[in-house]
């Protein structure tokens, strides 16, 4: 009845994963090795390509703007992730508590997910426009501000603007993850806590948060990695890095070296630096993901 097993389960698994592995090797790892190799060459489309050792890295790291670029990258990334996290937890907590209308609210809240980041940048740029956009107008009408809000001439608010626009697009993902984590907690735990005299603040701090921390942590790390390297919103909302380059981040620097200055060697070095920096966040992510409960 059972067909004879010519190959063991392990060999079968190996055989079955070959197409995927070929794709992984040829399509992800080889380009990575290629870009690491490139970073050691002078490759600027003007002179012949020659081996240059660490010259590209020296050039990037000794760029007087580099510390500020790095700092802005972190402000943007942590700002956007922080806003996303707070909003998501708030949303998930509220979505879990309501019965009627929860499907409707959930659909409304996750809608931005389907919007390309580049378009979300354009839309928010228009909404934040000092004279033609609704945000400045509403702030003035409600009396919160006396003068128009010009996010493009103030470095702090232009950073705030791109953070809001970026977080807007990222909230749905983390909300869904958080909601799922909240809903996986058994109702009996809350009942027991209530019997013991815990109020809703106690329950939230001592039951909800600890028991859902791992999925939320993983979701937050994914969001952090994404914000760290994504420049779509920044690129479309504040072209060229904005006023006084206040939103010029490492991703912008990379794309400019590649697209504006056609200096592939330098672009490769920035790519490798970006990979290494992301990997710091990434290794925490990998650690949490592989850790057994």
């Amino acid at each position, binding site marked *: *009845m*059972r*067909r004879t097993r010519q190959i063991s389960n392990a060999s*079968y*698994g*190996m055989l*079955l*994963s070959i*197409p*995927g592995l070929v*794709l*992984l090797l040829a399509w992800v*790892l080889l*380009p*990575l090795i*290629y870009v690491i190799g490139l970073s050691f060459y002078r490759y600027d489309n003007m002179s012949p390509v020659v081996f240059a050792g660490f010259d590209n890295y020296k050039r990037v790291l000794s760029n007087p703007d580099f510390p500020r670029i790095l700092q802005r990258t972190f402000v943007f990334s942590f700002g956007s992730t922080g806003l996303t996290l707070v*909003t998501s937890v*708030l*949303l998930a907590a509220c979505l879990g*508590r309501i019965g009627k*209308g929860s499907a409707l609210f959930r659909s409304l809240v*996750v809608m*931005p997910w*389907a*919007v390309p*980041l580049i*378009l979300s940048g*354009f*839309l*928010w740029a*228009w*909404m934040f426009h000092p004279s*033609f956009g*609704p945000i400045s107008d509403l702030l003035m009408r409600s009396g919160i501000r006396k003068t128009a809000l010009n996010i493009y001439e103030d470095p702090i608010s232009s950073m705030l603007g791109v953070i809001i626009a970026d977080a*807007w697009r990222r909230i749905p993902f983390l909300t*869904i*993850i958080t909601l799922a*984590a909240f809903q996986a907690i058994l109702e009996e735990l809350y009942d027991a806590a209530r019997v013991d005299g815990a*109020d*809703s*603040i106690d329950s939230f701090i001592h039951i909800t948060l600890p028991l859902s921390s791992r999925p939320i942590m*993983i*979701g937050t790390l994914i969001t952090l*990695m994404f914000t*760290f*390297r*994504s*420049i*779509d919103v920044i690129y479309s909302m504040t072209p060229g890095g904005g006023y006084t380059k206040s939103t010029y981040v490492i991703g912008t620097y*990379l*794309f400019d070296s*590649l697209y504006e200055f056609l200096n592939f060697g330098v*672009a*490769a070095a920035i*790519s490798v630096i970006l990979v290494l920096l992301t*990997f710091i966040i*990434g*290794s925490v992510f*990998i650690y949490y*993901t592989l850790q057994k409960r």
Partner: protein
Amino acid sequence: MKVRDLLLKVIDHPATPYVVLGVISLFMVSPFIWMVLSAFKTLPETFMSPPTYFPKDFTLETMRFTWFEAPIPTYLKNSLIACLTATVIIVVASVFTAYALSQYPYQGSNLILGLFLFTRTIPPLAMLLPYYLIMRKLGLLNTRLAVILYLIYLSYPLVVWLLKGFFDAFPRDLIDAAIVDGCTRTGTIFRVVLPITAGSVGAISVVAFLWAWNEFFAPYLFIHYDELKPITVGLYYFVGDEVTYWNRMCAAGIYAVVPSLTFFLLAQKYIIKGLTEGALKY
């Protein structure tokens, strides 16, 4: 203690979640509202200060113009072709790998799993350069194939990982039962596993599709012919040197969002299920 009591009163009030949700939902949908309202304004009206909220001279001209006289249908077609092709290739290749990693572990499979996880952390932005140069060497710049090949890289590791987590939740007994009944291991995949998991595999495909649909920088770099650009790059058509045609941009934005939003809302239930099972429970 008084502050806490007051806080509790607010938190426990049945209306509170509705108020919070109402406010945040308004924030989440406001760009959509602004986009739709602006698409029906005339160009001069989009440059009024203070801005109008409801279109004063309601016009369908912009929607007509962007569809019939700007290359929006071509952009959409390009996006659809590239994204569908890439998604199909990714999902077909990933299903077997993910299934093997989940149900038939072998020596080194954990290492491979870690490798997939690692590749998820590689910034796509950092891979633009090697892909650009590879495409240039292969003479593939300004072809759809270049974009498709990049899109495959973009979501491939994620899809494998999500699918793997998803197959982990599949009851092993069902697979064993099918094998006892005389089904081959490969037959089990097609006759038992895939039919049951179709919903979630579909949801993960939609996630991969959306990811591809939203990609901007690679096609921006690889494609310079208008007739091959996808919709995200096509949006730049309305950014002029002197003036940005905001009403047209918004109309184009509506066309860009309708396909992905439809896909998304249709598959929403499965996406949430597939994502939470695949991303978190392993």
